[in-house]
């Protein structure tokens, strides 16, 4: 950002700007996904109207809901462990915020271009399960406890294919940095033709499939929503949360969906790179965020499409799918990628 504006900023000024950008960006992304997909697309796919009253075509419904949540009483069960109960939603939200740190939106538009970027994102996104377990335990409610246990079992099982799928991309690019991964796709060539770069989805289609399935499970979205299954454990670890603490979980869920979609778009679809615009020009900083947003919306569409069309798995089917199909598939992908990279 200092390069783009051609002014030199002090470290604390830069940090303040980054924090402000994050504070605005993360809730906005959750809002966008909630309105576009949860309210509108879900209604259309199920042949109903969806929210219509608040704002034009009901577009402000989620804002109205947000205000409603803020006004609600903050109820804590008598037998709950008060401190852990209060801290749990914050742990989930912190994990979400940290995931955004390494996602680049342009050659210079990145909060922090860590050399270990994608690995960092995987590590911090795995922290949210601690918040979920804390919520499940501290609520002093057997349904919450069961939901928390289901969530932990699921997130442990799907953490592995997620990381293994990313490994295929990392082997091909030869770097963990998110910017390097975008650059490799922008400057790559398909059999000598560099017209659209080389989106890694072409060579890592298997990894893309495994990654998306694992993301769906990490987000506890249907068909992997056993942890919050309302017909079985009545909301799971959410059950005792009201008001703004519930809002935190809601924000965390949708903002994490956006962050994972951003990571998928960066790893497999070229991130901020637009064919025709040289990645080292200033224009890439202007067009980059828009391109990234369009790609994120496409990936989110896939996530929510599966969410709204598939019925819930059974607990044993969930574990079978992860351990017997996704993990072997991603190991095959790593082996093949490794051989190809070494051989050519």
């Amino acid at each position, binding site marked *: 950002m200092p390069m783009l504006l051609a002014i030199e900023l002090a470290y604390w000024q830069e940090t303040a700007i980054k924090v402000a950008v994050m504070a605005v960006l993360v809730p906005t992304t959750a809002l966008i996904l909630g309105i576009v997909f949860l309210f509108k697309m879900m209604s259309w796919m199920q042949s109903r109207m969806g929210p219509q009253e608040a704002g034009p075509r009901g577009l402000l419904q989620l804002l109205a809901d947000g205000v409603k949540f803020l006004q609600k009483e903050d109820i804590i069960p008598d*037998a*709950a*462990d008060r401190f*852990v109960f209060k801290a749990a939603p914050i742990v989930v939200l912190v994990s979400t915020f940290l995931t955004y740190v390494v996602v680049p939106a342009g050659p210079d538009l990145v909060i922090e271009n*860590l*050399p*270990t970027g994608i*690995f*960092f994102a*995987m*590590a*911090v996104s*795995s*922290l949210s*399960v*601690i918040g979920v*377990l*804390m919520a*499940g*335990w*501290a609520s*002093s409610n057997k349904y919450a*406890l069961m939901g*928390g*246990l289901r969530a*932990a*079992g699921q*997130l*442990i099982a799907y*953490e592995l294919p997620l*990381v293994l799928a990313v490994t295929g991309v990392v082997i091909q690019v030869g770097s*963990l940095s998110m910017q390097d991964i975008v650059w490799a796709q922008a400057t790559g060539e398909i059999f000598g033709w560099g017209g659209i770069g080389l989106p890694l989805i072409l060579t890592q289609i298997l990894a893309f499939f495994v990654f998306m399935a694992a993301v769906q499970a990490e987000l506890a979205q249907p068909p992997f929503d056993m942890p919050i299954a309302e017909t079985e454990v009545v909301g799971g670890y959410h059950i005792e949360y009201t008001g703004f603490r519930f809002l935190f979980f809601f924000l965390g869920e949708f903002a994490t969906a956006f962050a994972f979609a951003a990571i998928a778009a960066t790893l497999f679809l070229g991130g901020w790179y637009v064919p025709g615009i040289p990645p080292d020009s200033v224009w890439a900083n202007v067009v980059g965020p828009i391109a990234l947003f369009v790609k994120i919306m496409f990936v989110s569409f896939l996530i929510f499409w599966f969410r709204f069309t598939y019925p819930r798995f059974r607990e044993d089917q969930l574990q079978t799918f992860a351990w017997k199909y996704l993990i072997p598939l991603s190991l095959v992908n790593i082996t093949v990628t490794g051989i190809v990279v070494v051989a050519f």
Partner: protein
Amino acid sequence: MILADSGLMVAQNIGFAVIAFMIVGAAIRVVTTDNVMHAALYLVMVLAGVAAQYILLAAEFIAIVQVIVYIGAIVVLFLFGIMLTEAKLGKSDDLDNKPMRPVAIAVAVALLGLLAYSLVDYYGDDQLALAGQTTAELGQTTAQVADSVFITYLIPFEVVGVLLLVALTGAIVLARRD
């Protein structure tokens, strides 16, 4: 990550002290708290503090491994196990092993003495020189770590891997009843 160029590195030392006190305090609470879940959550603080210390040492990759392995996997497994078996809220009275306290204190003091003696005996008044200012000069970038693990220390790495696999298989054999 650039280390400060003076010999003293004031900010790093202050950061180190703050995090170190946090680690020690949380570690004491791990063993003195009267609730198993709280102990596991204090353990998260200890492990996160260690990750932060790694970052102060410009060892980014190791810090992230610390987070993903210890906090993301091992503590989650602890919490999972505790919640599956005994997840009482509030105080538990049977967590303290009072008769064994003198033994524990003796072991702790002996360990402290041993570690302190070996450190003082080996290093004395030596000052360790920094290999460089940046992560690359220190030989701590991910590529350099990978090179040393998979070239210089390949055999020990593989041996440890097999050892862990044996332990894993052994645990499954012991746990299965059929």
